[in-house]
Structures are given as C-alpha cells and as structure tokens.
C-alpha cells in the first residue's frame, strides 16, 4: 500500500494536522497519481457534506455575506488587494488552498472530462472568456448586457432579459470595424440571461452590434442594429 494514497484519503477528510497537511501538499505538487485520487476522494467527501444534516442558517447570514462581498468590490482587477478583514491570515490560507486545490483539480479531472468537454467546447470557451481576470467589459446601449473581451480579443456576449426572436427570425451578432459588418454568431434570445462566445475576435476599435434577421442568419445586416456596444 502506497502510504501517500492513505494520506490522500486523510487529506480529503481534512484529518491531517497542519504539519502533515503541509508535507502532503508538497508531495501532491509532484505526484499525478495522488492528484487524481484526491479529486475523486473530494467528490466522496462532498457527498458526506450533503449528509451532515445540520440546521438551516439564520436568514440574515445571506445578507451579511452579500453585504461584505459588495464592500470588497471590485474583485475583478486585483490591483489593490483589499484583504482588510480581521481574518486576514485565514484569507491567505483559503487563497493558497484554492490555488493548490483548483490547479490540481484541473489536471486530475481533465482526462475523465475530456469527452464532456469536447461536447461543451463552445460553452467552455464562453466561460473561459468571462472568467478571464484580464478581460474587459463593454456595455450595450439599448439592451441590458455587455460584451466581455479577453486579452487575446476573444469575446463573449452576456445579455439579460431579451425577448425571444419572433417565429422564423434569429438575432445575429456582428463585429463592426470601419463600418464593415462581419457575422459573429446567431442566438434565439429569451430566458432570463445567457452567455455566448462570439465566432470571431473583437479588436480594440471594433464594436459589436445585434440585428434581427431571418432564420439561419445572413451575410450582411438587412436593417439597422437593434442595439450595439457603446
């Protein structure tokens, strides 16, 4: 029995003391096998969490968490870390654990998720763009939503509360540069909110516009934009 595999179970249960934890994490950084095992054991300890059966939290906790989060805004651009909480040390610990745990998760789960990922490649791309900390955001004028553009120019649209396109019609996205409209994807609208990657990059001086077109989309817009970025 590989002693490290037993330690992996103990680590997933948080049953190591501080020193053992530190030593195990050092090993983890070098051992793919333990990383895979840990990801799998974390799923099991997550199941144990569901069975814990404690009481419901006081309703006020939700508001306190949201108020504290609001007071720490913005968290997107960490130029001025605002860890001005009494629990500063624990924040560092959480951050370290996140960095470690998530990096590991990424490696270890990648294999088993390969199939699912290819099916969700487009969705994953949009998520990757909106979660890129270096991305910037441009609002739409005339609709509630914005375009998120990553540092590499990949873009995703985030829209709220747009009515579904009428029967036989579709919304079409355009990347507009020097008054030239290039198609960048179709969507149906409806639903409270959605996120979608654009099929072409958005440069710094480009705008993004949306028109209503016939089903299947068109090569050039047939009317003025319904709304576009500022």
């Amino acid at each position, binding site marked *: 029995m590989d002693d490290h595999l037993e330690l992996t*179970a103990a680590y997933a249960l*948080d049953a190591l003391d501080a020193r053992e934890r530190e030593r195990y994490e050092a090993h983890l950084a070098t051992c793919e096998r333990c990383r895979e095992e840990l990801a799998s054991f974390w799923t099991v300890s997550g199941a144990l969490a569901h069975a814990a059966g404690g009481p419901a*939290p006081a309703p006020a906790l939700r508001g306190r968490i949201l108020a504290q989060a609001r007071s*720490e805004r913005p968290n997107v651009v960490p130029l001025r870390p605002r860890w001005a909480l009494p629990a500063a040390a*624990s924040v560092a610990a959480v951050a370290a654990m996140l960095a470690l745990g998530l990096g590991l998760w990424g490696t270890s789960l990648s294999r088993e998720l390969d199939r699912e990922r290819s099916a969700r490649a487009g*969705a994953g791309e949009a998520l990757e763009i909106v979660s890129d900390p270096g991305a910037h955001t441009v609002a739409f004028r005339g609709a509630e939503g914005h375009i998120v553009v990553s540092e590499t120019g990949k873009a995703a649209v985030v829209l709220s509360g747009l009515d579904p396109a009428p029967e036989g019609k579709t919304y079409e996205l355009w990347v507009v540069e020097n008054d030239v409209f290039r*198609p960048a994807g179709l969507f149906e609208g409806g639903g409270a909110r959605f*996120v979608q990657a654009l099929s072409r990059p958005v440069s710094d001086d480009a705008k993004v516009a949306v028109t209503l077109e016939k089903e299947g989309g068109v090569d050039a817009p047939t009317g003025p934009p319904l709304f576009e970025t500022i």
Partner: protein
Amino acid sequence: MIVCAPTVVAFGARPKRTAPMRIRDHAHLSDEALVALVARSDEGALAELYDRVGGIAYGLAYRVLRDESLAEDAVQEAFLGLWRAAATFIPERAKASTWILTLVHRRAVDLVRREERRRSEPLDEAPEASTGSAEDSAWLQFERERVQSALRELPDQQREALELAYYGGFTQSELAERLGQPLGTIKSRMFSGLSRLRELLDDRAERDAWTTTSS
C-alpha cells in the same frame, strides 16, 4: 457563408426553479457558469450560489462546530473566499458545489481545532438545511438519504473513522489515541472506508441512472 453554431451556456442545464420570496434571475445557469460570473463581480450570481449551496454548507459547518456563530463564520469566510478567488476556478473541469463545500469544511475543521470544541455525537436537530425552493429541499433529502444508506453499508469501524474524522474534525493522530489503535490502523480504516463509500455511491448512481432510463 459559414456561421459558427452559437453555443448557449447552461440553458436548461438545471431545471428552472423559483423561490417564492426572491427573484432568481440566475436560476437557469449551471453552478459553474455562476462561478464564472462571480469572478466578474456578479453579486446576483454569488447570491444564487448561496441559495443553492449555503444551506448544505451551514449544516456541515454546524455539524462540525456545534455553534451557530462559528458555523456562520466558516460559511461566510468560504463564500468570501469564493468571491475573491473565483477567477482561479476552472469552470468546465470541477464541480463548483464540491469546491465550495471543501472550502467550508476546511474552515470549519480549522476553527473547531482552534476552539477545542469537537463533539462526536450525532445531531439532535431535525435536518432542514435547504435555503432554496421545495425542489431544492426534495433533492437534498434524496441526496442525504442516498449517502446515509451508503454509510450504513460500511463496516462499523470504517464508518466510525470516517464520521469522527469528517464530522468530528479529529486528526488521524487524535483518532488513534481516542480509539486506542495504532496510527496505521486508523489511516487504513479511513482509506478503505472512503474507497468503499466511493464504490457504493458510484454503484447507486449507475443503478439510479439505469432505473431512470429503463422505466
């Protein structure tokens, strides 16, 4: 003309649900999409994640800590950790709820060890940890029963080691002392117990999937 088929994130990834008292305009997004929005300072997304996982997280923290205000601290710190660090989460590769619960458990265990207040007895309170809709509660009830019945199938010594470690917050060395066993025995009980639990839960998932598709 070539138009790339647009991919809409998470439409229908989760059944649309509404809570009576709140507007849940993020209700149709997957947990992972919500984390991505949290990374962009979307407060509504943080609220939605809390509505989905906060109750389970608090129930877990309370079971470990046996103290309302410490349990609240553990949950609050974990969610604020999420708020600050969501951008490091790899959305399509991990289950966001597992990630959040891992954070909460780590915080709760660290707090309980600092406070020296571990207790191993089961809880008296009737479980009602859901912060969400009736559908959330039903799902949580189902999941809890699924895990508890898998736990019941473990050999007593393995179940004891898992429960004292995970819900009691004991370290493996403390467990060895408490149970009067060599450390190696405790390690091996935790490893075997967790491995067996994984098998049992997988089997059940397969059986459930089979039942659903074949009925």
